[in-house]
Structures are given as C-alpha cells and as structure tokens.
C-alpha cells in the first residue's frame, strides 16, 4: 500500500474516488442483503449456553446460599419466608447483570440459564422474584405470540445470516 494513498489527490484521483464511493453505495442499494432481524416477527433462537433469564429448581436447592454470596450486583438474595424452615434464593431483575456467577457456583445445578432474554415488565415490583415466584419456567413473550425463531449462521458473504427454522 503506497504511503500517499490517503492524501488529497488531484482532480482525476478525486473524481475516481468519488466514483468509487458512489458506485459502492449503488452496489449496496441494489443488493438484497439485510442485517436487521425484525424482532417481534422473528426471534433469534439463542440456544444452549446463552446466559439468559435464570431458572431456579426448588426441588434441587440445598439452601447453601453460595449464589447469594457470590452475586456481584446484590440481585440474588436468600429469602426467609413465613412458614418455611429453610431460606431460599430469590432474584431481583432490576439489578441482575446476567454474569452467571450464581449458576456457576451452584453445586447442585439448582440454578440454570435459559435462552429467554426478552421479558419486559410494566412495574418495578414485578421484577422481584421471591422464591415462590422464582420456581417457574421462562417463556419468551415474542415466541409465545408466534414469532418465528431464526438461527444465526455465520456466512462469508453477509456476515450473519438469520435462517428461519
């Protein structure tokens, strides 16, 4: 690469550069590539390993409280509920940063990540999951309303392709 390529050139050079820029623009104008995933209609299937909403299994939990101790955002807490002998973890999604430390530290697989990530709330209070509420399956609202799942595929030509399943 010549050193002076990135300097203002004479009229001819500059016209060539203008033409190259416009031609590139036109080439993309006429291509059919898109990067957008039209979310409420299509939803990306995140698959195994994604650090999404956390699922707690009450039956597996041994109340060791490691998850609450490791939580860097003070989102996971041990709740002492009326009428319960043991303390159980609950989570505050106002704070959760999805670092996944709690899942990684749980010795009995009582906590696991789900690929669901697109839950929204109308009220702040709804975001606090006390143990009684925490032990439920997560369902993506978009998927529930019939969004088509797409899979992300790497592609040399378009970078990421989103293939409907």
């Amino acid at each position: 690469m010549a050193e002076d390529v990135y300097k203002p050139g004479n009229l001819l050079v500059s016209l060539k550069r203008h033409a190259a820029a416009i031609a590139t623009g036109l080439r993309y104008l006429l291509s059919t590539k898109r990067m957008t995933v039209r979310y409420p209609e299509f939803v990306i299937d995140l698959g195994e390993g994604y650090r999404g909403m956390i699922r707690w299994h009450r039956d597996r939990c041994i109340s060791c409280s490691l998850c609450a101790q490791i939580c860097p955002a003070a989102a996971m807490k041990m709740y002492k509920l009326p009428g319960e002998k043991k303390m159980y973890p609950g989570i505050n999604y106002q704070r959760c940063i999805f670092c996944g430390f709690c899942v990684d530290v749980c010795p009995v697989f009582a906590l696991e990540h789900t690929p669901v990530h697109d839950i929204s709330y109308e009220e702040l209070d709804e975001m606090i999951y006390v143990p009684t509420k925490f032990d439920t399956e997560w369902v993506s609202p978009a998927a529930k309303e019939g969004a088509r799942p797409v899979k992300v595929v790497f592609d040399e030509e378009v970078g990421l392709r989103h293939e409907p399943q």
Partner: protein
Amino acid sequence: MALLDKIREALEPLGAKVEEVRPGYISVSVDAGNMRKAAQLLFSLGFDHVVSVEGVDWIKDKEIEVAYHAASYEPELHGVIVKLSTRIPRDKPELDTLIEVWPSALYPERETWEMLGIVFRGHPELKRLLLPPDYQGPPPLRKDYRVVEEGFIVDLTRKQ
C-alpha cells in the same frame, strides 16, 4: 548496569527507599519535600510519562500515601513501572505538583485532589472533574467515607 541499580544510585542520595516489589515493578519512596527532585531524576532515567497518580488512605497511620506510577515509551524500558510515593499527614495533605516534570499528571492529579483531598500546590486547575460541581461531602476515596454494602439475606417473616 541493571535498571534497579541505576535507580538506586540516582535516588538513594535523596534518602529514597528503592525496592523491587515484583519483576518489572519498582517502588521508590521518598520524603514529600524530595518528590520533585526524585521525579526529575526518574524522568532523566527515561521514565517519560505518568500512568497514574493516586492516593491510598492509610487511616490507621493517619497518613495518605501519594503514589505516581511512571513508565516509559522507550523500548528498553518497556514493561517497567516505577512507583514514586510519599506519605503525607492526613490532616494536612499538601504536596507540590509534578506537572512541570510530567505533564501527563495533569488530569490524574486533578482527580486525586478531588477524590482524596490532596492539594497539589501549583496545579493550575484544581476543580471538580468527575464529581458534581456542587459536591459537598468528604473526599470519597478516603477511608472514613463509608459505602454500606447490603447483606445477602432478606427476612420476609419480620414484615408487619
């Protein structure tokens, strides 16, 4: 001559304590009055910029340690950091600025003034940088400014 010896030779006449904390990390501590001289000597040894200016509040000793971490862009000094530090009393934290030696200390010194209340005499711009302009409390990085961390247990049985 090894770098450590060079630094020793240059700085020990000032009464500096030079030690190698870890490979590539040399600590030099001097009296507050000798800071500028020590800085100039380090600069002439090739340490041409300051990576960090910081204070550590040793509240039990009633002292604040002000540390300048100097490094160099010269290839032979790559990978070496020299900590030039001094201890000054907590209740009268004043020190001459080193921006004449190391202009790169301009913003870090300003930040250290703001966060630990250390007055750098001769610094042209000691005004709020990161905190709100009307911040009134004690310098926040001092140890007597406490941040309360929550516990990890919520007791819902005691409610009502």
